[in-house]
């Protein structure tokens, strides 16, 4: 379609400055890098918030920060890590890797992709701007009604949260649809769905979760926005509303969200293990079906977050059974990963360390999850540090370890340089040590009754020592992240170059140069197997000869590749939208003006490459 303004590969940065080329980019790889760096920045922000909380809890009756600041910290820590760190870090891999892994030159809608990123950034900045005005959100990342009503939260804090999350939701929805279309339509010839790499599969399931789960929280947020701005009473019990409505809407989103956070990491691990064990993924179809099952059941378990609400024995039983069911496909995956290692030749490189760390830690998070799948047990554990420990084993031990496996694995592909193995292993062991020192004791603290979201505790409850250990552990994690950053800076300056295929890997992205050219594939490959690149190099291992590398494309072929040209409308549309949304806190006139600007930008965005069918006019 719209390729009138044909864009020659490699000419992008020449006509304007480097900065301009980044803000107008529609290249999925550059957008991936933008997502990745923004996400890492917010990961650090959320991490600092966590460190301050840990300092506050290091001893009983501490007065380091007051209750207000502490409540803001845990609210923003949760919101930041979920929406601004793990999700965009996953999105960074979706962006960079999916087109490369399916043999495509870009995503289906490159400008929409850029728009997703700019709207994400707008939402992230909007949310964090609340710190500057001294009204950071303080009702928890779950924002339970009716504490979020004007009556109980009169400042603008919740407004920042409501509007910020809505902005972020729009970004997620656009990205979700974009990747669904990309994966369905843009796979290389021969890549049937069952030949798709596992990371692409898990990402595919994730996109469906995104587009189905976000509408639920959007409805919830809009009702809350109406309550706060226009005086409706959806969540106001005194006016006949129901605060539990929010809990249902939030968790119908919130539980699939957990799988949105973990499935991409599971996909990464399913790529890293076969590469470093030099064996195909054990039972790949079962791993795929398990991923789909997890995604599907993920929508039927939300009320297990509400066992203490008093829904009655029938609902408690039903949601308990559904939750237990979800443990089956999850457990199957863990066994299949171990089956992948079994009989392989396991090469201990840093990406594998993190993937193994993922399995080891995620298993623990899964097992503690089974405990509170039982409502009677959950009544003792919910809202205690036992649950805090549980979901950090899943989201840190799981998602973050998995994402770091992906970072170390694909870094050479993205930058062309290898990260240092020695520093990588320091990073891994320090993070492993720090992580377990931080979160393992929290199981114990929860079992001896320490509730969540408390800024202080009495000295006579036996909570002091292990809280101190937990705080020390958190700082060890911080050191491990510093080691990673040192690694990045050092190797980018003078590290060894990676070559196309440093790990002797199995999938298409390793068959092209590192970093990949703008057009990715000079010649779109034809695929015959789930591990097409391995097949080319080593054969199928059952007597089939290696297929051999295809002949390189000629200069004329490369010259004929048309790539989408850069566009400044995504960032302008994002800015106009941010201007409109922030108007909600400033003035109705700004909302109207911002709305008009947004409409104008949408119009220009839509018609950017529209040409009248006849030659007349312009």
């Amino acid at each position, binding site marked *: 379609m719209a390729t009138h303004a044909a864009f020659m590969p490699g000419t992008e940065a020449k006509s304007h400055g480097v900065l301009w080329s980044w803000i107008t980019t529609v290249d999925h790889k550059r957008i991936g890098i933008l997502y990745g760096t923004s996400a890492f920045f917010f990961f650090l922000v959320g991490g600092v918030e966590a460190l301050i909380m840990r300092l506050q809890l290091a001893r009983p009756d501490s007065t380091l920060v007051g209750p207000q600041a502490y*409540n803001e910290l845990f609210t923003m820590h949760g919101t930041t890590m979920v929406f601004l760190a793990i999700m965009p870090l996953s999105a960074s891999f979706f962006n960079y890797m999916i087109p490369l892994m399916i043999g495509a030159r870009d995503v289906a809608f490159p400008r929409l992709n850029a728009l997703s990123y700019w709207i994400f950034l707008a939402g992230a900045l909007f949310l964090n701007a609340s710190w500057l005005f001294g009204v950071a959100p303080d009702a928890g990342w779950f924002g339970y009604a009716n504490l979020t009503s004007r009556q109980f939260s009169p400042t603008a804090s919740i407004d920042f949260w409501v509007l910020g999350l809505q902005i972020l939701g729009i970004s997620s929805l656009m990205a979700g649809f974009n990747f669904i279309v990309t994966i369905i339509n843009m796979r290389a010839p021969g890549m049937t769905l069952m030949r798709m790499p596992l990371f692409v599969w898990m990402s595919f399931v994730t996109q469906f979760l995104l587009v189905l789960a976000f509408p639920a929280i959007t409805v919830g947020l809009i009702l809350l926005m109406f309550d706060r701005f226009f005086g409706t009473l959806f969540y106001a019990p005194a006016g006949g509303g129901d605060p539990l409505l929010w809990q249902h809407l939030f968790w119908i989103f919130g539980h699939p969200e957990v799988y949105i956070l973990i499935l991409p990491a599971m996909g990464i691990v399913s790529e890293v293990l076969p590469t470093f064990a030099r064996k195909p993924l*054990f039972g790949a179809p079962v791993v795929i079906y398990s991923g789909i099952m997890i995604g599907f059941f993920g929508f039927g378990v939300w009320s297990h977050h509400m066992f203490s609400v008093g829904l009655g024995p029938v609902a408690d039983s039903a949601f308990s059974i559904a939750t237990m069911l979800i*443990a089956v496909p999850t457990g199957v995956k863990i066994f299949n990963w171990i089956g992948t290692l079994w009989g392989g030749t396991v090469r201990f490189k840093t990406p594998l360390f993190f993937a193994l760390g993922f399995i080891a830690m995620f298993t623990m998070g899964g097992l503690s999850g089974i405990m509170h799948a039982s409502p009677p047990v959950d009544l003792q554990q919910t809202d205690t540090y036992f649950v805090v420990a549980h979901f950090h084993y899943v989201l840190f031990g799981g998602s973050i370890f998995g994402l770091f496996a992906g970072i170390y694995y694909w870094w050479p592909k993205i930058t062309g340089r290898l990260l240092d193995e020695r520093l990588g292993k320091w990073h891994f062991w320090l993070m492993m040590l720090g992580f377990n020192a931080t979160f393992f004791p929290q199981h114990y603290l929860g079992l001896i009754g320490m509730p969540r979201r*408390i800024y202080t*505790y009495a000295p006579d409850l036996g909570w002091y020592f292990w809280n101190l250990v937990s705080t020390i552990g958190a700082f060890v994690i911080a050191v491990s992240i510093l080691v990673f950053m040192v690694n990045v800076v050092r190797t980018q300056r003078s590290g060894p170059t990676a070559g196309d295929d440093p790990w002797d890997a199995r999938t298409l992205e390793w068959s092209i140069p590192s970093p990949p050219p703008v057009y990715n594939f000079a010649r779109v490959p034809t695929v015959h197997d789930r591990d097409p690149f391995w097949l080319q190099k080593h054969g199928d291992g059952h007597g089939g000869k290696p297929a051999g590398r295809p002949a390189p494309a000629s200069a004329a072929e490369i010259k004929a590749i048309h790539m989408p040209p850069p566009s400044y409308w995504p960032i302008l549309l994002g800015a106009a939208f941010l201007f409109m949304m922030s108007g909600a806190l400033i003035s109705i006139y700004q909302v109207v003006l911002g709305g008009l600007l947004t409409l104008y930008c949408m119009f220009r965005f839509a018609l950017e490459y529209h040409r009248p069918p006849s030659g007349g006019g312009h």
Partner: protein
Amino acid sequence: MTTRLPSRPRFATVLLLLTVLVLASACSWVGWDWDTPMSTVMPKSDFGKMTHEIFMLISWWTLGIFILVEGALLYCCWRFRDRPGAPIPKQIHGNTPLEVSWTIAFAVILLIFVIPTIRVIFKTQEAPASTALRVEVVGRQWWWEFRYPGLRITTANELHLPVGQTVAFHLNAPDVIHSFWIPQLGGKRDVVPHRVNQLVMTPDTPGEYPGQCAEYCGMSHANMRFRVVVHPKGEFEQWVKAQQAPPVEPTDALAQQGKTLFAQSACVGCHAISGVSAGVLGPNLNHFGSRKMFAAGLMATTAENLTKWIENPAHMKPGALMPNLGMKGEQSKALAAYLLSLK
């Protein structure tokens, strides 16, 4: 690329051993003391004990699975580690019988958890017998009110129960969602505005147990604590009798001065003392002096603490809704003396 520096595995092993050593010594030094004031694994009621049984059942099974999985993982890492010159391993794609069997195994194990779970869910949510002691629990930002409608007693932040008697808690909140939780007596139940939740249990061991709000409810959520006293047989009746008695008249001069001050000031708008005032927004103070702790279990009931509290409530409990009435020096001392005399 596949050459390995000998120092790497050694370094990793040393670090791992060190970690285990440090953690092990830390554990043995401090120990994991389970018998603490808010322990969830020392159940002192039928409700808590039923829960605990399931917890232990799941714990043992998951410990077994944990050892199996982590053991298999470590075994794979050791047994199948790359050796120099190793050929490309056999490209195994899966093993259907094996995969089917472990899927079924998981389902069976989960069934072992599900059956007792559902039994206990229904057992613990049965309607209480009509002989049960009814206690109405009102969660407020940020303190607890306890009413015994059958006994015509209203008190705050200190819950008294007889041992061996079934209690039916009726939970309600006028403001936001809280959660009523006495860890040693069993699991929590949310306190939801405009909705009456129920929690039924029979405490079986006399003692004092701390409780705490478990659902984030705003600024001083961390300070929304309470104390539970489970009385031995006979002792509860004495407590009831003392609470039902009208508040005592102060005898010493300072306390009498305090009473006058109380009756003339804004205190009466929120607090009830039979014969003096009838406010309902704050805790009932009829027998304030008999409570061991005040301000939602935050401080011991002493003259010094009480004086400080009256002079600046929000300083002691951030966000406290009790206003600073500008009581100073003699005034706050007199009020404290009066309240302490209300045994």
